């Protein structure tokens, strides 16, 4: 039996720790000003891409954390469990289509899915929602339409992305099956212990719990986003686009290469269609592989997933998304070329 107590003094941050952190940050700022690393072209490029990835993604993570906090604090326990009683054949497509009502990109859907699963929604439905929302939401569909406007493959891309995104999300949800939330979710130090404490005083006010949950989710996801953005920016700084041109037209390999490219570029699902459309040497199926796989698995998301899910489940998720996207796009290749 364990009891939850304050951390031992040796491991607890003291005033000295906070002072050291402050000094480290100030020294970093001074060092940056004095050494002017932006004079080196690749460092400047890295900082610009890194900064832009974070500045664009963090508000979405916060919106996701806000939605997750609303679910945690204001949705009564049991509400989501009622949804779980629906048959799975109905539950998974419904969860995927719920993405239509959630017009934010992939970074925001992760904390929401985590909270939905923690609060009682079937984990398979939560994962389906998480994967589908960034592909099926109206803003993404509209941006795909704009990017391919004037192309013969316009409707193949728009309808193909929606349909394939839906099918892949449902298929992965099916693979998740009846796994419980404990098998899926990585335990977090700030959750799951409070109930052990003997609290005789009344619980905190709802508004306080709301802000604490929102902050906790944001700060927890944010650190993984910073990590993912660092890797993605580094890759973007050095990756020459010409590297992949040689494999266009090689069956299956072109699909795999476009999926790999989507993984390393870590683009927002609301803009990736413009990049996909620029790969004119690749056919619609390969471009769809890029557009379906990227919003579901990339460096940035990989870091978020690692913070959210257990390692085994994360591996399974990546394999399931990759396999179903590959099979789906192979069919598109047969039908649309």
């Amino acid at each position, binding site marked *: 039996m*364990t009891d*939850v107590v304050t951390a031992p003094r040796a491991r607890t941050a*003291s005033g000295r720790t906070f002072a050291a*952190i402050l000094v480290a*940050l100030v020294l970093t700022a001074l060092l940056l000003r004095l050494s002017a690393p*932006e004079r080196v072209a690749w460092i400047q490029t890295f900082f610009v891409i890194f900064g832009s990835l974070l500045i664009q993604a963090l508000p979405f993570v916060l*919106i996701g954390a806000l939605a997750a906090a609303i679910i945690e604090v204001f949705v009564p326990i049991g509400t989501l469990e009622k949804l779980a009683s629906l048959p799975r054949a109905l539950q998974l497509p419904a969860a995927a289509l719920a993405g239509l009502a959630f017009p934010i990109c992939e970074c925001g859907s992760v904390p929401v899915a985590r909270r939905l699963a923690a609060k009682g929604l079937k984990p398979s439905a939560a994962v389906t929602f998480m994967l589908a929302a960034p592909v099926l939401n109206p803003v993404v569909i509209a941006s795909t339409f704009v990017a391919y406007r004037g192309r013969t493959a316009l409707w193949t891309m728009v309808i193909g992305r929606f349909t394939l995104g839906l099918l892949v999300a449902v298929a992965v949800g099916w693979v998740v099956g009846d796994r419980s939330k404990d098998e899926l979710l990585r335990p977090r130090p*700030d959750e799951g212990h409070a109930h052990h404490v003997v609290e005789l005083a009344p619980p905190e006010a709802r508004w306080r719990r709301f802000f*604490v949950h929102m902050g906790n989710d944001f700060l927890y996801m944010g650190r993984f986003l910073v990590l993912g953005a660092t890797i993605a920016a580094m890759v973007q700084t050095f990756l020459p686009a010409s590297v992949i041109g040689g494999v266009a037209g090689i069956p299956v390999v072109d699909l795999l290469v476009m999926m790999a490219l989507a993984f390393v570029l870590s683009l927002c699902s609301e803009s*990736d269609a413009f990049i996909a459309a620029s790969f004119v040497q690749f056919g619609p199926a390969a471009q769809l592989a890029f557009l379906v796989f990227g919003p579901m698995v990339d460096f940035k998301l990989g870091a978020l997933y690692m913070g959210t899910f257990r390692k085994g489940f994360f591996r399974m998720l990546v394999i399931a998304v990759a396999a179903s996207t590959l099979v789906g796009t192979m069919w598109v290749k047969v039908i649309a070329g």
Partner: protein
Amino acid sequence: MSDVVVPRPAAPAATHARMRPAPTGWSPSRVGGGLVLGAWATLFWFLLLSGRDNLYLSTRTSWVVPVGAALLSAASLGRLASARVRAPEPLGRREAWILGAMVLPVVLVLALPPATLGSFSAGKRAGFAASGVATPLGDIGTGQLTLIDVAAAQTTKQGETALAKRAGEAVGFVGFVTRYADTPADEFLLSRYIVTCCVADATIAQVRVVNVTPGAFAANQWVEVKGTIYPLGREVIVNASSVASVPRPSRPYLTP
């Protein structure tokens, strides 16, 4: 931020069940998290008020900056207002350093001078340069030509045909100078990035500018080129009548 708790062997039952007094104190983990949120809120307000958001985002997504600033401020204030608690959660030393690391990107953006993507990436993104920006052909066939029109025209055969009909017309473009090892001394590539959401999705529009005074313009220098356009298949040439140095535009990236 996670409010770190560390399990240790159980205390005697009597201690466990004893009623706690209800003193209030500042929770280090809530205060620490509130300060990190506040640092990010400060960055977003800074970007908004200084106009530096244009260096990272397109006009389509610039709305995330005021929204982010407001939400981060509210989240920070709300968390700090909730920071006085009966049983303050401690903050582990490792967790405190992780929170400090989360402020590092804020320090980077604030400490470094404003910068944009430049020539270094132009070569890396050259494969993207055929550009997926799809402008209606009508825009290419009539009116003042822009670098977005040029990029769009290079995407399709019809676009190339429409642009070819504009050969010999006067144009004026603003962009930065790009030179490769094999670029002749009296030429350069005029480049401009096209950003849909953020810089990470930048594609590039380029035209080859000829009839330039050798050595007059350095790589990454922003210039305004006026001259006559000659589309030659996938390459577009501008015969310069004047090239003038200009300050970097407040919006250095184009939005399709």
